[in-house]
């Protein structure tokens, strides 16, 4: 356990830039853009306020600050959606980071020969690989989620301040949002995300462990070329395999499994979301694991990680 802890810590030291700085900079950049937009809008609005007087009723907020219960619920849903949206944005950036992290995870140290240093220590190959899987499935998403939620909350505060400047008191509307509930749900969904990302993580790490050069070429070429062959077989009528089925069930799962909310593809029609909170409903989301499809992907991911461990142990010829 202690070895695993230090191995994960080691991954974080090495990839601090990707795991921590990239999401933080993304959030900071979006916040800056938001602030610039607001300031720009204020100045423009001020300049043209004579021609276009602001019509308050458009915003569904009466001047005396009274809202109907339904309006309040809508507003709350909107605010929750802001938190979800900003988290999703940061998670999307993280997905790109983790994609390249996985591709390099078992290749970079073979390339710069630092593997010889790691291999001079009493560490089993499986622990090394598992620590990297853990970093990709847990460490990176948790950091990105926290940054995303903070980013969403800052956006809400920014919006509220803007309204205050214009004389609308909307602090009580903030009370209609469910930041804690949303935060809890998003974090509770990370294990589901991790499970559904396993096919992609396994595939990328397998390529990383066995490629003698350019793992990215293997990672992209094999799924895309095989898809092309399936498509061609379909065209000439040799195989009944549908190319679009192959794309969504094989190619996409090997390459795009890191995207935020990656489990939606398994969700059935039983989901009837009304509010943003419904989207995050743990029971409904985790119910997607009832689909055998999801488990086939997870098992394939685990199998590919196992093969990657074998390669890690025995591939030392450089």
């Amino acid at each position, binding site marked *: 356990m*202690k070895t695993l802890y230090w191995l994960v810590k*080691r991954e974080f030291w090495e990839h601090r830039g990707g795991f921590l700085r990239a999401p933080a900079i993304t959030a900071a950049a979006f916040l800056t853009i938001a602030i610039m937009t607001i300031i720009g809008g204020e100045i423009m609005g001020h300049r043209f306020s004579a021609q276009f007087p602001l019509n308050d009723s458009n915003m569904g907020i009466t001047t005396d600050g009274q809202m109907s219960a339904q309006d309040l619920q809508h507003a709350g849903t909107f605010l929750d959606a802001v938190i979800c949206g900003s988290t999703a944005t940061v998670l999307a950036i993280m997905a790109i980071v983790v994609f390249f992290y996985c591709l390099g995870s078992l290749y970079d140290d073979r390339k710069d020969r*630092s593997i*010889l240093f*790691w*291999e*001079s220590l*009493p*560490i*089993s190959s499986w622990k090394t690989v598992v620590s990297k899987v853990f970093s990709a499935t847990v460490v990176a998403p948790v950091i990105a989620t926290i940054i995303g939620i903070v980013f969403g909350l800052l956006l809400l505060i920014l919006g509220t301040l803007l309204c205050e400047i214009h004389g609308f008191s909307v602090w009580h509307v903030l009370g209609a949002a469910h930041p804690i509930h949303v935060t809890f749900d998003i974090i509770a969904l990370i294990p589901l995300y991790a499970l559904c990302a396993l096919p992609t993580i396994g595939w990328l790490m397998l390529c990383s462990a066995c490629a003698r050069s350019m793992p990215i070429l293997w990672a992209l070429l094999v799924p895309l070329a095989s898809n092309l062959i399936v498509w061609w077989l379909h065209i000439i009528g040799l195989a009944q395999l549908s190319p679009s089925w192959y794309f969504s069930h094989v190619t996409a799962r090997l390459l795009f499994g890191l995207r935020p909310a990656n489990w939606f593809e398994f969700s059935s029609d039983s989901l009837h979301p009304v509010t943003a909170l419904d989207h995050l409903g743990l029971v409904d989301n985790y119910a997607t694991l009832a689909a055998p499809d999801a488990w086939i992907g997870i098992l394939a991911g685990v199998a590919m990680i196992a093969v990657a461990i074998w390669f890690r142990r025995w591939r030392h010829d450089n």
Partner: protein
Amino acid sequence: MNAVITASGLSKRYKNTVALDDVSFQIPAGRIVGLIGPNGAGKTTALKAILGLTDFQGRLDVLGMDPRSQRDKLMEQVCFIADVAVLPRWIRVSEAIDFVANIHPRFNRAKCEAFLARTKLTPGQRVRQMSKGMIVQLHLALVMAIDAKLLVLDEPTLGLDILYRKQFYQSLLEEYFDDNKTIIVTTHQVEEIENILTDLMFIRDGKIVLNTEMEALGDRFAEVMVSADKAATARQLNPLDERQVFGKSIFLFDGADQSRLAELGEIRRPSVSDLFVATMKGTYA
């Protein structure tokens, strides 16, 4: 029996080359063994087999373990410096110490820090900011603080200047080596380690062509400087090698009768590098 390494019938074949060809040897504890051979002779393959980094045919026993199946346990007792450039470039001195201290059960942090205190390295410094010599200082500090039974050095001083090279071997001898430890070292800079070795192994084309203790080297091998008139007599004694210096011939003999050699001229113990060149004649031809 206190053999640290026992190899019998050790073979390793790559697609179209034989890296190790039915090699057998034994290394007892408390020795410093020089494994010397031309490029591509199988040195690194032999070390990789010992470290459990490659599969092989035959039997190999390192500290009573099979390096293939018990590698994780074995590496608690075995240290390894491949060459100077293998420390990860992103790591900081403090991170490297923290990591090894928490991963390795036999690491002595105080010893490592004491060694580093005598260098210019600072805790916050990253490997990528260091010169080759500083990297090897850090690596040596980490390795010397580990109480291991076997230390494997594969070209440890490649690309270092002479100050760092001397310091490297001096530190090893003075602060690390003792009767319970065994060191195996491969290098091309034979002259520098000649004086610290206790045993010498020559490897050529995957075979051990010479395996001797340094003390026995002088009894077995002799170098005689012979004037031109006695050269023909000397040639009849089957010299290993002959070279010309200042109009005289220098003959290298393996196992010749010392009293007969004395009649030819002055006898010297050959240097390891002369012996090496003579033994490896025709390797690249």
